[in-house]
């Protein structure tokens, strides 16, 4: 009997010490309405929650050396995987990099803190187009653009031919698919907003529609297209294209560029946003509402908005920079690449949060798959 009690005690103690061992070094700073931060002020190590391979490790090292604090980076693979962790509170993260529509969701839920503009003098470096007027945060009160890009189609010219029409019909027109012989060699993003959005664009509607009728038409298209797909794929579409498993892939601009660069013959592939239009997205830095180290977060923002540092970011991952002052430091070939910097952005739309209609998008997507 004694031994049983002892075992229970040991188990209990083990749990307690486990809990205790974790608290240790983490100093929970004041949150929310914290005192104003000064320029270049740091109040502890930076806990960065970011997309994977989205920042040049050398930039992190440079920041660490310049300010004498560590940068702890963790990664997420989608806005939706990041949001619940932040919204739950007590995440321990200081700075996050949500995309456009997610910024508005986080603002509405009160999960991000206002940007202390005085602590970020480099905000003047922003291109006026990005400094204000972005639909998800019109005054730039809560977020600072990090980088931007587009969603479109990457194609293997060896299969579809050099004069491939720049249309979503490659996916949604069964006759065109048959003609080019690409049935079963297509991937679409496994994402309701992107894929339903592509169908909506093909039909000539806004990808932020809240009309059930328009959505139903798009649903019928996606449902038909599912039969001509290899897969719904959000991660490896560029690899499947490069390895010859597919001929047409729906995905994000920068990923394709990096992949094409690695190919034996980079000219074998091309990326375009179809003429009917598509998605343009911006990822943004935002300080978490209960950030333990808000001043370090602002200092880091300011650091990345520096002209040379902003350019280093773009030269590293091939996504376009919202930083006007950085342009002179960006490699010429990147600047001139229409994939990175599309010449015509008029047909492009940002994905906006549609509130209650979001569930209609995901339901329609699931029903289209059957």
């Amino acid at each position, binding site marked *: 009997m004694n031994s049983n009690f002892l075992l229970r005690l040991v188990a209990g103690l083990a749990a307690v010490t*486990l*809990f205790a061992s974790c608290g240790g070094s983490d100093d929970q700073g004041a949150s929310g309405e914290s005192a104003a931060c000064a320029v270049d002020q740091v109040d502890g190590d930076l806990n960065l929650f970011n997309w994977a*391979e*989205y920042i040049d490790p050398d930039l992190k090292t440079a920041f660490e050396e310049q300010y004498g604090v560590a940068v702890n980076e963790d990664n997420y*693979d989608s806005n939706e995987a990041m949001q619940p962790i932040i919204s739950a509170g*007590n*995440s321990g993260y200081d700075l996050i990099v949500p995309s456009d529509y997610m910024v508005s969701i986080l603002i509405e839920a009160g999960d991000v803190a206002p940007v202390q503009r005085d602590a970020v003098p480099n905000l003047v470096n922003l291109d006026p187009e990005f400094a204000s007027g972005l639909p998800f945060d019109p005054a730039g009160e809560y977020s600072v653009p990090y980088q931007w890009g587009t969603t479109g189609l990457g194609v293997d010219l060896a299969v579809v031919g050099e004069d491939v029409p720049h249309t979503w019909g490659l996916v949604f027109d069964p006759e065109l698919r048959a003609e080019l012989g690409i049935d079963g060699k297509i991937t679409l993003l496994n994402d309701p907003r992107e894929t339903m959005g592509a169908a909506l664009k093909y039909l000539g509607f806004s990808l932020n529609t809240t009309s059930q009728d328009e959505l139903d038409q798009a649903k019928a298209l996606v449902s038909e297209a599912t039969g001509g797909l290899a897969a719904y794929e959000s991660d490896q579409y560029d690899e499947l294209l490069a390895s010859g498993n597919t001929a047409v892939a729906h995905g994000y601009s920068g990923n394709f560029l990096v992949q094409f660069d*690695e190919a034996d013959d980079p000219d074998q592939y091309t990326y375009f946003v179809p003429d009917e239009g598509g998605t343009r997205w911006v990822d943004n830095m935002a300080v978490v509402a209960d950030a333990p180290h808000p001043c370090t977060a602002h200092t880091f923002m300011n650091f990345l908005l520096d002209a040379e540092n902003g350019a280093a970011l773009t030269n590293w991952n091939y996504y376009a920079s919202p930083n006007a002052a950085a342009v002179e430091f960006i490699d010429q070939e990147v600047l001139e690449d229409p994939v990175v910097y599309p010449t015509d952005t008029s047909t492009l739309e940002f994905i906006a949060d549609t509130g209650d209609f979001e569930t209609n998008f995901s339901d329609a997507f699931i029903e289209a798959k059957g």
Partner: protein
Amino acid sequence: MSGSTVKPKGPVAAALTVNAFLVYAFFFLPIVILAVFSFSDDRLVGRWGGFTTSWYGEFWNDTELTSSLWVSLRVAAVSTVISVVLGTMAALGLERFRWKSQRFFDSVLYLPIIIPDVTMAVMMLLFFTWGIDLTNEAFGTNFAKGFATITLSHIAFSISFVSVVVRARLAGMSLELEEAARDLYASRWKAFRHVTFPQIVPGIAGGALLALTLSLDDVVITQFVAGPGGTTLPVRVFSLIRKGVTPVINAVSVVMLVASLLLVALSVAVQRLRGGSITG
């Protein structure tokens, strides 16, 4: 007790051997593939680009990957030990004795096996956020999510798996030997230690292997209960895959494999040293 003399003979034995061979081939085919491509000098996994060990160098110089490997191993070791102890005790308590509300506990024990990963992830996130808030406010402590929350969650799902395997071993196991030992005036503890325990060791070892595997493999739950800078290797790999599978991920897997082999070898060595044996 062991029936090693009753091996099947003739065509049955041949069929069994062939089957075993095929099963191992099935198990190791992808492992060989991923190990081979960890030495391939081409960013695209699946295309051979000549021999290189540079991916291992890349892994070794990536402090984020190496530190998360360390977290993974620590979490796996701690959660396996605790869940094996708790799970085995529960299995004994449920299988060897009759008591009230046993059925209810039975159901509780199955829940972690039944529940979908995401659901458990979401509920652990809500629970720990709320629990840490409450504790910090009540006691002025400084708890945060990290190693502890990951380990506690891993134990929560491992206990059930361990106890299911151990119970499969205990169920219907003859009690006569233990009874006999007690008739010979051995204490309950001694009878257990020298008679029952050796018999259930294979079940415990199986349960431990399962718990270790589950802990080393979990992504979804860990992702939701990890804190800044303290996550496990699979979670890192998961976010890397989003940006493209490079052979560095294969190198990581090979290192992971070797590290866990060492972990097992170490535990066997410790057991040997203490005079025990893991054989039944």
